[in-house]
């Protein structure tokens, strides 16, 4: 038996999943012991951060790092078993989630909403993290579906968690939409299996690159990729699939909303990047889609131009709808929910530019821009939603009508929110500046005037709603609710920590950029991905096993 060598790097790949799984099971068993539960939960969070940091260093960033590592579950060789793959892109995403996850976890130990359901909070939290982690690491399309479901099931309960009539209703819509999306996901997966005969992503990329050698007709994958794209767009909350976001984000506890916006949304973005660029980019399909009504023709020799065109439309809609919607909201989380629709548009624009890019240089650059912007959004929006949690636990409300004068009541809170808002707007030297700058630069390099105008309008809308939020809740006369507020120091410490992270990313941007560059190169390196996974055919396998008996 010539099994794949199980080295440290290989075992590392599965480490973060094992850590969260143990933490989830542990907190479930300790349901009746709040202190032990919290301790296990925090230990799980710390272990997760260590595992992710180890992946970052030993697999991606160290001078002699392999850049990519795989773990074949059950030691079954690809494509017969499930493969887990950690490369630069996965590591970048995991790092984002780990930073925000720790902040949200520590926050949760200080402010745990809900009554009798409390003992299920931490298990669900870890299952949510497990689903997100699995989605980032899996190298199998059906397995991706399963991790999506794990992630969604935890999030369903969180949306209904607070237990009020409006929460139940929000959860019902959320469940309905996502069940429908799951069915569509299955349609895409089934169709791809019928077309190519495999669901292993590396095997898929290999077969699509040389359809003739495997005797398949790859044309249907363009449409099937479109189906998958719509599912991922629902997760990411891109227009026209954004309608669930405001109600669900308002219903979930704020520290979970921080994760929904910072982590599960990024799963949608990650899946779009991974599938479109690593897997389907090499597919030899002549795409020729004349659209006489709008006077544009989508042509190319891979599915990417089609993905790019679809993403452009969705991203433009998101930026406009999110920005305009956010200006008119009457509560903090309402503004941030709409804002996160708009911000995802800002992440999708460079992805679309990458998909339609003429050369590999611009393509890499645009993906870097998307990743840096995603990092900024995770940090800033995570901070802002956690701030909503702080304001709510301090004053009991987050409606503008009941707020005012928070800046003088708690200067550190105001400072943290100020930094978070400026990061959304994109003021130097914060992380948001580089995010915005790279996105604008990518659009300029692509030479697309309308996209630049769109980005500019989106940025102006961001300034408008950030200013309005600041005026309504932090300036002005103190209301009774603010006067009676008691602000939790640990929560403030977490917010300030995230604010410092935002500033640190902005000031020490060089290593962050290099990490994003490694991630973008990994996302575009189909060959490296296929080589690392090394999918075999049954006959090769039989040969290496000495006849297969």
């Amino acid at each position, binding site marked *: 038996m010539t099994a794949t060598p199980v080295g440290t790097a290989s075992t590392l790949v599965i480490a973060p999943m094992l850590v969260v799984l143990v933490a989830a099971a542990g907190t479930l068993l300790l349901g009746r012991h709040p202190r032990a539960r919290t301790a296990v939960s925090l230990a799980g969070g710390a272990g997760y951060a260590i595992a992710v940091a180890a992946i970052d260093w030993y697999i991606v960033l160290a001078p002699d790092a392999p850049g990519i590592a795989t773990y074949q579950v059950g030691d079954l060789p690809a494509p017969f078993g499930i493969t887990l793959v950690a490369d630069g892109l996965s590591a970048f995403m995991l790092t984002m989630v780990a930073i925000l996850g720790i902040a949200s976890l520590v926050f949760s130990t200080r402010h745990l909403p809900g009554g009798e359901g409390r003992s299920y909070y931490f298990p669900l939290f870890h299952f949510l993290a497990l689903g997100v982690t699995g989605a980032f690491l899996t190298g199998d399309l059906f397995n991706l579906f399963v991790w999506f479901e794990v992630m969604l*099931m935890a999030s369903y309960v969180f949306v209904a968690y607070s237990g*009020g009539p409006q929460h*139940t209703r929000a959860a019902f819509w959320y469940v309905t939409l996502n069940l429908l999306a*799951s069915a569509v996901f299955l349609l895409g997966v089934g169709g791809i299996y019928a077309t190519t005969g495999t669901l292993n992503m590396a095997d898929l990329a290999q077969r699509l690159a040389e359809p003739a050698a495997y005797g398949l007709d790859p044309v249907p994958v363009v449409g099937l990729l479109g189906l998958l794209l719509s599912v991922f767009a629902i997760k990411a909350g891109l227009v026209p699939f954004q309608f669930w976001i405001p109600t669900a984000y308002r219903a979930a506890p704020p520290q979970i909303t921080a994760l929904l916006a910072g982590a599960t949304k990024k799963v949608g973005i990650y899946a779009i990047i991974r599938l479109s660029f690593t897997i389907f980019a090499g597919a030899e399909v002549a795409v020729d889609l004349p659209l006489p009504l709008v006077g544009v023709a989508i042509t190319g020799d891979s599915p990417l131009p089609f993905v790019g065109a679809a993403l452009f439309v969705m991203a433009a809609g998101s930026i406009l709808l999110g920005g305009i919607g956010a200006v008119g909201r009457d509560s903090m989380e309402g503004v941030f929910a709409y804002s996160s629709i708009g911000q995802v548009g800002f992440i999708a624009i460079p992805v679309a530019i990458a998909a339609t890019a003429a050369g590999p240089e611009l393509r890499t650059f645009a993906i870097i821009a998307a990743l840096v912007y995603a990092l900024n959004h995770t940090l800033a929006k995570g901070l802002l939603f956690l701030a909503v949690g702080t304001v709510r636990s301090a004053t009991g409300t987050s409606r503008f009508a009941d707020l005012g004068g928070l800046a003088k009541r708690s200067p550190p809170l105001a400072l943290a929110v100020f930094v978070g808002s400026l990061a959304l707007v994109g003021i130097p030297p914060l992380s948001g500046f580089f995010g915005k700058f790279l996105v604008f630069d990518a659009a300029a390099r692509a030479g697309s005037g309308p996209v630049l105008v769109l980005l500019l309008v989106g940025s102006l809308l961001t300034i408008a709603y950030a200013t309005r939020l600041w005026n309504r809740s932090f300036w002005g006369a103190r209301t009774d609710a603010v006067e009676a507020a008691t602000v939790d120091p640990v929560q403030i410490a977490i917010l300030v920590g995230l604010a410092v992270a935002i500033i640190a990313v902005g000031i020490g941007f060089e290593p962050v950029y290099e990490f994003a560059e490694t991630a973008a190169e990994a996302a575009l390196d189909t060959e490296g991905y296929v080589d690392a996974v090394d999918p075999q055919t049954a*006959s090769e396998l039989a040969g290496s096993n000495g006849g*297969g008996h």
Partner: protein
Amino acid sequence: MTGVVLAATIGTLFALGTFLLLRRDLIRVVWGLAIISQAANVYLLAMGGIAPATAESVPILAGHGEHVPETADPLVQALVLTAIVIGFGMTAFALVLSYRVYEEHDTLDVTELGESE
């Protein structure tokens, strides 16, 4: 022939599911979801097809030594098994949620629920 029948069945199931999903009654909506997820399962099974078994698809039959019978693709069956379990759990959850909605709003009518916002 099998192909046409399967296609028609899957199409009918999806049509029925979509119709129920668009009703005003929440319970019908849940039924619609259940039918659509089952339709997706049938579709998945159909995507595997029936083919002469080879070492590629069913290794255990290839090692059997004798005549290898025509088989359905085993992989999609494993996939469908997973999908059925997930779909079953989610349908139960959606039913519980709709009961809770009824308790809290005294109605299962989607339009009335929307107005109570």
